[in-house]
């Protein structure tokens, strides 16, 4: 095992690496408990470098190309996994972790249902790295992977996720009664799936287990990304087959996503709301797995990329993001969920908070809508300082491509994707600060601080009232406008009196100009310093000009005052044991 290094390198090829890591980690060992997160992060960074070094230097010469390639693949995947796990969870080969791995990768089907749940294409790739970690159970799960998602009646409920598992079991009982009918209708094609499903000894009691294990039930349903083509195909196939039985299921299914969305801790989950009902209404049975996968993939891709990105060393993001969105999401989801299962303190809020950074990085790989959704999910009230130069640089890089897009649309964009009129009111400092941060990091809907009366804007409380009213379809219409409309709604909420539509439109216009102006300023500041990427220094200069940061009040003071504690440890460099500073400077 990797000792204090914190991740398990499998196989004989990794032994040298393990030895290296354990050597590095041995010095950290006595100090394990509190700063273990940071240590693991640090050691992971070093190990990452070691990982990259070893294949290139030592092994390639001695071994065949295939093994080297495999190792590089594995190393990359491990690196990704490790980075995500860097948030604190030290992966170990225990039955608990194995079971967790199995549950994560298991297809969503019950023993009763003959057909197994779909596993889209990337799943096998993802399962492989994870299976390397959990050698035992997951191998069996790879069997039913590419089967079309046919019987998804109980799986249907999977979109319910989170706390819906308890209801799912109840629902499933009802479904089981209806099962024999559907099974018969399907015919002999199920025989193979039956046999394969029998092999899934570990995966079978997915829902009932959740009832017995509330801790796992709370686990976010981060699964695989959706192969859109296969998903649509499945929808078409199953819609015909399951139209009659599916009708009865629409009602309960429809309620589930909204419930989960409302229970969602992330403030800006509107896109999910918008997406999931539409998806579910169309095709309850077959779409469940796809939809849930899509939602999960979306929500957790961004979320998982958040911590992953955050924990990554500067060199990592491009690798992780470019191209392998699905695989990455899955790989990340896996350790991500594991970490969340075991209640890592900072992970969840970090995910939310880091979302801004995550968006910036994932900008290129993710679709705009997803980015926007992530931006909204992240940004919320958490004005975030770019954690490190890396994220801002990534954001800057994508800014050019996204310039025309609205704030949240260009979330991955430079910190200030949205532009507004120059700040009029510097008085409402907290709101302003949030505005700066959010703009600085994400184009996510900036609070309409300039126009709001100087009231103490509590981020969460501010978000809650408008969130309940957020319409789903509207969120999908115009990504450029969605963020602005959100802030306009906030404005109307704080106005405490009814507002005309025209007034709201004017507010939106003003906010738009304001954020545009802010973006331009940041860009000019960066250019002034001879850089092409916007950095935290630029943001600090902007805030200084706004009067938020003074000689008496520094940026760190503002961070401490207005941001949650989790962001503080992300933004303010702090020295940790082992002669390491986090975040790296």
């Amino acid at each position, binding site marked *: 095992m990797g000792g204090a290094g914190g991740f398990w390198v499998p196989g004989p090829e990794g032994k040298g690496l393990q030895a290296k890591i354990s050597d590095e980690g041995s010095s950290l060992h006595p100090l394990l408990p509190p700063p273990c997160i940071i240590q693991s992060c640090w050691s992971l960074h070093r190990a990452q470098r070691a990982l990259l070094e070893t294949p290139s230097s030592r092994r390639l010469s001695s071994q065949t190309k295939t093994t080297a390639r495999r190792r590089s693949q594995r190393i990359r995947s491990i690196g990704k996994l490790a980075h995500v796990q860097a948030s604190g969870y030290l992966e170990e080969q225990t039955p608990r972790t194995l079971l967790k791995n199995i549950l994560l990768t298991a297809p969503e089907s019950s023993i009763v249902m003959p057909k197994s749940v779909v596993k889209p294409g990337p799943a096998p790739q993802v399962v492989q790295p994870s299976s390397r970690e959990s050698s035992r159970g997951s191998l069996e799960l790879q069997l039913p992977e590419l089967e079309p998602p046919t019987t998804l009646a109980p799986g249907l409920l999977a979109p319910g996720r989170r706390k819906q598992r308890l209801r799912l079991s109840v629902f499933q009982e009802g479904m089981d009664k209806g099962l024999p009918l559907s099974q018969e209708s399907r015919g002999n094609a199920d025989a193979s799936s039956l046999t394969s499903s029998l092999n899934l000894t570990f995966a079978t009691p997915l829902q009932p287990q959740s009832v017995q294990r509330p801790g796992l039930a709370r686990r976010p349903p981060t699964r695989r990304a959706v192969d859109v083509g296969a998903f649509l195909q499945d929808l078409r196939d199953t819609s015909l087959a399951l139209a009659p039985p599916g009708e009865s299921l629409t009602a309960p299914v429809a309620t589930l996503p909204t419930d989960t969305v409302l229970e969602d801790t992330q403030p800006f989950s509107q896109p999910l709301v918008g997406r999931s009902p539409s998806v579910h209404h169309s095709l309850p049975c077959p779409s469940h797995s796809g939809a849930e996968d899509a939602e999960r993939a979306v929500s957790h891709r961004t979320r998982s990329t958040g911590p992953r990105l955050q924990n990554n060393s500067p060199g990592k993001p491009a690798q992780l993001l470019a191209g392998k969105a699905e695989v990455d999401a899955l790989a990340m989801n896996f350790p991500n969920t594991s970490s969340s299962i075991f209640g890592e303190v900072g992970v969840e809020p970090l995910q939310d908070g880091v979302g801004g950074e995550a968006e910036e990085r994932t900008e290129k790989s993710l679709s705009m809508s997803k980015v926007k959704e992530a931006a909204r999910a992240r940004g919320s009230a958490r004005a975030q300082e770019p954690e490190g130069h890396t994220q801002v640089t990534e954001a800057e890089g994508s800014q050019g491509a996204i310039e025309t897009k609205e704030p949240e649309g260009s979330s991955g964009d430079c910190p200030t994707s949205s532009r507004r009129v120059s700040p009029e009111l510097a008085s409402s400092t907290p709101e302003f600060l949030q505005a700066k941060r959010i703009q600085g990091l994400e184009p996510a809907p900036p609070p309409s601080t300039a126009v709001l009366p100087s009231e103490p804007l509590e981020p969460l409380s501010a978000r809650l009232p408008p969130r309940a009213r957020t319409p789903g379809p509207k969120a999908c219409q115009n990504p450029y406008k969605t963020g602005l409309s959100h802030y306009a709604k906030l404005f109307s909420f704080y106005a405490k009196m009814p507002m005309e539509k025209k007034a709201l439109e004017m507010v939106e216009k003003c906010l738009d100009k304001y954020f545009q102006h802010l973006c331009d300023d940041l860009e*000019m500041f960066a250019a002034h310093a001879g850089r092409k990427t916007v950095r935290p220094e630029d943001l600090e200069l902007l805030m200084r000009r706004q009067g938020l940061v003074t000689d008496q009040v520094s940026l760190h003071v503002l961070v401490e005052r207005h941001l949650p504690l989790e962001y503080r440890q992300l933004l303010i460099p702090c020295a940790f044991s082992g002669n390491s500073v986090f975040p790296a400077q």
Partner: protein
Amino acid sequence: MEEDDGAEEQQRFSYRQRLKAAVHYTVGCLCEEVALDKEIQFSKQAIAAISEVTFRQCENFAKDLEMFARHAKRSTINTEDVKLLARRSNSLLKYITEKNEEIAQFNLERKAKKKKKSEDENKNSTEQAEAGVVESEN
């Protein structure tokens, strides 16, 4: 020490007042010109307000310029800093860039002249040296 501080403060204060007075006078002159041009009268309070705003804005400008220079990791304020400061107003920015180019050209010409002069001087000095050497030899 306290007396010195007090004296310094007084000195600074009086210096500030003199600066303000100078600004006020300049603003007054400009307002007179505009009044003649547009045939509009300026009240004294208006001129005082304008001069006060100008003074405060100049303070802001100075601080911003210093911040910009520090942001670019320089210890001297540059024309680039000034341009960044003036970016808000398009016409002003244009004017400043034109002036900047003029000054740059002027400096180049100056440098060219200086080079010529120095070359000539060198020639003269060498000639003189040679002449001196020749003379001494002779």
